[in-house]
């Protein structure tokens, strides 16, 4: 049989459609998901197709190319928004007990939370820094590519049914205060105190395509690079390397690692169990 006519499995056709759809998103809107881990992207694109009631990924591509209003919703499928306050409490405990004592020696501090989602990690760090007396001298830069997530982060409002888990995590992280000191409950929602974001700048920044963010003492980028392929991870780690001040700290997700990165040599293990690294002297 002619090779061109030989049968292909349906999933192989889907793989072609995914490639084309991601290319279309990039060319039309400059959102670049071409180097995200493909198996997870595929699941989420198929969910989007089902959600929009479309027969194929090609149809989804057609829609989003011609209908910019659909883009935010599609971004909601393509970017994973799962987060919690004080997620992995041991990470925050390690920051509190091992990293902050070093930061205390600086008169002013810059902290970058890359891939901040709806702000859970931002408020966690703001509370942690306040408890440790470092909040007033710190500027926090919270970045993400999802505009809805950035808006939610800026609002700082979470459903009350998530608060129990947040409170438990906060306690396990060695919290010195009560989480309820920082929010008011109203109509099933917890509204976080706006003074917590007095020193926070929220902005749209992509680890795929945007530039260095200067001179940070601490960068926390958790559960973002896990969605990237190896070359894209290298790019992001390179950005972090160049954005850290001398002896600055980098914290990543509990299942992420710098071990395979091209830039691994630029970092020393600081709290290996919690994936906290320190920039080596250049």
């Amino acid at each position: 049989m002619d090779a061109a006519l030989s049968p292909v499995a349906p999933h192989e056709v889907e793989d072609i459609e995914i490639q084309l759809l991601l290319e279309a998103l990039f060319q039309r809107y400059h959102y670049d998901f071409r180097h995200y881990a493909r198996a997870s992207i595929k699941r989420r694109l198929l969910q989007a197709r089902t959600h929009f009631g479309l027969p194929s990924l090609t149809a989804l591509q057609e829609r989003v190319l011609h209908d910019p209003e659909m883009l935010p919703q599609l971004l909601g499928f393509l970017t994973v928004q799962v987060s919690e306050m004080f997620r992995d409490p041991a990470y925050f405990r390690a920051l509190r007990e091992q990293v902050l004592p070093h930061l205390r020696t600086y008169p002013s501090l810059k902290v970058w939370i890359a891939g901040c989602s709806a702000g859970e990690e931002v408020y966690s760090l703001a509370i942690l820094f306040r408890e440790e007396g470092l909040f007033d001298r710190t500027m926090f830069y919270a970045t993400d590519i999802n505009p809805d997530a950035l808006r939610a982060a800026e609002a700082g409002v979470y459903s009350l049914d998530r608060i129990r888990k947040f409170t438990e995590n906060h306690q396990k992280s060695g919290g010195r205060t009560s989480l309820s000191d920082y929010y008011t409950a109203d109509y099933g929602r917890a509204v976080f105190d706006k003074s917590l974001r007095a020193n926070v700048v929220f902005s749209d920044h992509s680890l795929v395509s945007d530039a260095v963010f200067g001179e940070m003492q601490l960068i926390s980028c958790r559960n973002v690079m896990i969605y990237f392929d190896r070359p894209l991870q290298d790019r992001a780690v390179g950005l972090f390397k160049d954005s850290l001040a001398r002896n600055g700290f980098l914290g990543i997700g509990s299942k992420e690692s710098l071990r395979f990165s091209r830039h691994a040599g630029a970092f020393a293990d600081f709290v290996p169990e919690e994936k906290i690294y320190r920039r080596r002297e250049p």
Partner: protein
Amino acid sequence: MTPDPARALVIGASAGGVQALLAILPELPADFPLPVLIVLHVPADRSNVLAPLFASKCALTVKEAEDKEPTQPGVVYFAPSDYHLLVEADGALALSSDELVNYSRPSIDVLFESAADAYGAGLVGLVLTGANEDGAAGLKAVAAAGGLTFVEDPASAYARPMPEAALRACPAAQVMSLARIPEVLKGLGQA
């Protein structure tokens, strides 16, 4: 037509799964020719004990799956707690913290469906005991890709709902008692 040679084995289990796997994995020889990828539902704070628990009892190497790790024959990979385990087209493993699927993370469906894409007819899927229906859609995907499908006999399983749901979704799957499973698996990947 001869069947495609097996290239990977995926296993899903829930309630009663530790006991079931203890009856299977220690029986497999050190030269077992396939990578073994496992999603076992356990309470989130306890699943990190799985790999050490099984490692001490198995001839195979047993470890927790790492993101972007290439798989090797004769190695058992457990999904870590609170992460989905997926297989990329090149056979490397991937972790993700996407939303729960079937109220579960890790989810058996997520592993089986991505593995079916990656390995096609070279995949063997096995659904064991469990009290929910995760794994049914996944096993169906394994069958649709031309892979082999096995289900623990619900009649003698510790919990029936999971193997029953798998059989409803995938009626052509081979049903076998727990006691027979090691023998059948040992026959896999032999040309």
